[in-house]
């Protein structure tokens, strides 16, 4: 059974159709990549799947149950969502930010329990943020901040993680680090969905890819099936060189195609 499935998902802003009849499925143990040009509707799709926005039509099932039947608390415990460019608005310490991940388990009058502290510690170990647990989050580098934001999600211990461009603006070291953490999470009964612009990373880490264009699902399949020069030329409007070796597939954009009107 799939962990999460969305059928015929549509979303509009006024009369403008943002997403049209998208079908998506996430199975346990999978790392699913959402790719597509800017403005294709990837982030909107994540907002729908995380219930931050309500779909206008279609159905989202979580383990076979309609997501709207789950209590908000249940949903918050099962589904972690790393927003695009996540940042902290107050200068919290790293540990405190990660502690926010325990909110779905806490009552409004209560402080952190021993279990909460353990989960936070575990999250810091997974993301290797233990070393700067007492630093102020706003003083960290972009890469470190992303790890902290990811750690906040791990503190919630969700089954399913959605991450919107988690590696944008990160150096190669941190890109790989973040992808490895997500890859490690997506095992057994857990899964992750990640929006990516780096197609080589998508090829290397994801089990399946959804290529989205103009609010519609263009193709879905394994990276080998999706990342072809034709598909990329059609959707992104760029010519690419695709190479493969023992380490995986690399997709290198070479030049823009003149006749492409996104």
């Amino acid at each position, binding site marked *: 059974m799939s962990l999460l499935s969305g059928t015929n998902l549509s979303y509009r802003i006024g009369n403008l159709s943002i997403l049209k009849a998208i079908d998506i499925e996430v199975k346990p143990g999978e790392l699913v990549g959402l790719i597509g040009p800017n403005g294709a509707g990837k982030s909107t799709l994540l*907002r729908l799947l*995380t*219930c*931050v926005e309500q779909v206008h039509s279609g159905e989202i099932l979580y383990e076979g149950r309609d997501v709207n039947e789950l209590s*908000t*608390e249940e*949903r*918050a415990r099962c*589904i*972690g*969502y790393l*927003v695009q460019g*996540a*940042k*902290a*608005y*107050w*200068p*919290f*310490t790293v540990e*405190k*930010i990660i502690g*926010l991940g325990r*909110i*779905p388990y*806490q009552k*409004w009058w209560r*402080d952190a329990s021993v279990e909460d502290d353990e989960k936070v510690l575990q999250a810091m170990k997974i993301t290797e943020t233990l070393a700067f647990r007492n630093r102020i989050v706003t003083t960290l580098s972009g890469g470190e901040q992303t790890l902290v*934001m990811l750690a*906040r999600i791990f503190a*919630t211990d969700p089954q399913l993680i959605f991450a919107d461009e988690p590696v944008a603006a990160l150096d190669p070291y941190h890109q790989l680090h973040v992808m490895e953490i997500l890859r490690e999470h997506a095992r057994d009964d857990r899964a992750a969905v990640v929006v990516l612009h780096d197609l080589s990373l998508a090829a290397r880490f994801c089990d399946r890819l959804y290529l989205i264009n103009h609010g519609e699902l263009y193709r879905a399949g394994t990276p080998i099936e999706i990342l072809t020069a034709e598909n990329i030329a059609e959707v992104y409007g760029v010519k690419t060189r695709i190479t493969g070796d023992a380490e995986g597939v690399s997709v290198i954009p070479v030049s823009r195609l003149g006749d492409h009107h996104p």
Partner: protein
Amino acid sequence: MKFETIPNSRLLAGLGVCLVVVFYCALLVGPVDISIVEALIDWSRKESSIGSLILFDIRLPRALLALFIGATLGLAGAALQGLFRNPLAEPGIIGVSNGAALGAVLVFYFGYANLAWFALPFGGLAGALASVVIIFMLIGDSRSNVTLILAGVAINAIGGAMIALALNFAPNPYAIQEIVFWLLGSVSNRSINELMIALPFMLLGWVIILYCGRFLNALTLGEETASSMGFDVKRLRWFLVIGVAACVGAAVSVAGNIGFIGLVVPHLIRPFVGYEPRRLLLASTLGGAILLVVADIAVQLLSSGGELKLGVITSLVGGPFFLFLILKTRNTLL
């Protein structure tokens, strides 16, 4: 600037002890020297002495009002700064305090103020309620904080204009003076009855705001993240607006506009709670109470002849102090 985060219990206990001390001092201050102990003994024997009269009819209502209004302003300021994620927000920003002020001014204008002691507070509460209704209509289904702030700006502008109009057409100079003095903000010459009208609304507002503490913490990561963490952002924002409106509206209804407490207190306390909006709430409540009780003591000690108004002194001290804070922390300010 580097501050050590103080454990919650110790911080709250410290502030609580402080509050008890300044509250006791507030009962000692006044033109007549009275013995608190003797007054209490007289009161317990149900003998009416000068001391017990002064204590229970004058000083206690005044000190209690200062305490509850200061607490309300501190809490409401902390709540709105958390909601807007901006250390410059203050209770007046959503327009409710000006709405309440307008309600009270209209009571003065139409001459109902002296008809019954409850006319003024009721006028103020009606004004606060009207502002909330207007905010509701202006905001509709919008989820943007900017819309909420703009609604506040609009209500503040309309309220200000109407107050000016009332002053312009005031029936006599005495009415003008009454209105202006009331607008300056004060807790003197209030009875326990006025406190009793305002208190339920204040407490209701406090409970609503404190309930939203976890939500304010989650907002540290932005609205979208808070939403994914199980919070209905739109609904909880309404909770906060209503909570702030109830307690601030009630506070303004009995005491007029007292500025800067709601701005300065959360700002002062924030570093000691590790910038955590939820922990800031209770600490700011106590801090606001302490500061306003102290300010009211200062008002009484400094006044000679015409009374210095509480709202004047909080602005007089609060404004420059806030400037000083900005200068001192501008590098660490968000």
